[in-house]
């Protein structure tokens, strides 16, 4: 009996693995959906594995333009000075801010948090413009006739340090 239950558990687990890979579990609603998502979060059964599929999407990044009261201006990105692995994760963070946080207020809050972290790192700056940008890469045939890659702005917001949060 114990063996039968274990085999049933193996079977259910693998069925969920297959369903997740086929993007079926995300369509489940109600108690079944919540249950499968919880089990997925714990076990990974139910995940989809769309690594660079069906296409390679554009890279996103967060660029900061900081201004000082003296009129100086300088730029940096979240990845500035970080290792490749950390830079890659921070790039994902920019993607999350842009894609996942669809609600305007949530996106604004994320951008505000990013701005606060930069203002904290640069006490001399009083204003920061946060820009989410995407890397526009021409196709191979476009590149051969002279097109070149560039960063394109998707969204930007400016934050000003108020007297209350002066260091």
């Amino acid at each position, binding site marked *: 009996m114990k*063996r*039968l239950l*274990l*085999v049933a558990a*193996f079977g259910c*687990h*693998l069925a969920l*693995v*297959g369903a997740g*890979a086929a993007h079926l579990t995300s369509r489940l609603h109600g108690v079944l959906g919540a249950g499968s*998502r*919880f089990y997925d*979060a*714990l*076990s*990974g*059964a139910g*995940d*989809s*594995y*769309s*690594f*660079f*599929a*069906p*296409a*390679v999407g*554009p*890279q996103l*990044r967060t660029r900061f333009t900081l201004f000082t009261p003296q009129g100086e201006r300088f730029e940096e990105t*979240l990845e500035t000075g*970080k*290792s*490749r*692995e*950390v*830079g*890659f*994760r*921070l*790039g*994902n*963070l920019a993607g*999350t801010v842009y894609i*996942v*946080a669809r609600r305007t207020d*949530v996106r604004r*809050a*994320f951008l505000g*948090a*990013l701005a606060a*972290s930069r203002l904290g790192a640069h006490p001399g700056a009083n204003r920061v413009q946060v820009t989410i940008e995407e*890397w526009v*890469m021409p*196709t*191979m*045939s476009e*590149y*051969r006739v002279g097109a070149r*890659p560039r960063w394109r702005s998707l969204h930007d917001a400016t934050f000003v340090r108020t007297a209350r949060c002066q260091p």
Partner: protein
Amino acid sequence: MRMGIDTWFRPVSARPLAGLRVGLPLLLLFHLIWLSGDLLSLHGSRGIIPWELTDLLRNPWVPGLPTLAKAFLPLGIGEHTGIIVLLSGYAGCLLSLALGLHSRVSAFLAWGLHLGLVTSGSASYYGVDQLASTFLFYLLVFPSGRAWALGAHAAPSGREETIPVGCLRVMQVHLCVIYLSAGVGKALGRQWWNGEAIWQAVSQPAFSTFDLSWLARYSWIPMLAGWSTLAVEIGYVFFIWPRRTRREWFVATLGLHLGIGLFMGLIFFSSVMILLTGCLFMIPEEAVERAVA
């Protein structure tokens, strides 16, 4: 029916699972050390994204590191210190799991803390974290401490330690699903057939390790690389099982991941994928008799 059930419990060598138990925590530990300088900016209470915002992205039923860190508050340990304690504990559990000390307890703690880390860092998380979490779960539920473990007892009969074959098969099937799903997903897009996917991937600043802009003049190279990726990933499920083709497919998979590591800089991801195929398919599963003096 009974015979069908019993085939899942045929004893096989515990070494493939033990190889995973040693290799995966060590890779995660190296990765943790690699990221150590930035862990607090990704996960800390004074990190880039405040906890209140990361909470919006996580599964409400799975606690993230902040929830766990707040549990230390009644002990007089602040949130910032709490995170450091948890990350240090995570490192300790990974080491303990790799050594095979109280494997199940170590696996439980390592899995739980990894899950907390992934949950609270969901904004900066990517595929390899998801894979690591999945296979730590298997190390927890399956008997991973029966071989190559400091805490393991030698089998009395002179035979090596075994595990039920079902444990191994579940992980092997899961790995095949991962490759098949990734391969089929890619094959549905045009980019992987005309080479643009490879061109786009190696040209992005995040991945670019060499200047490969000359590839635009030889578009057949990325096209061939795209086809090879599809062949390796979709063919994995068909060619990794038969003994006659297993070694060749392992070499092809190794080539794919070495390429990803070299040309896209995804070293940690590549290492984890190589480890999974290496342990689950290339360590022989037949239990062998020990030479008895």
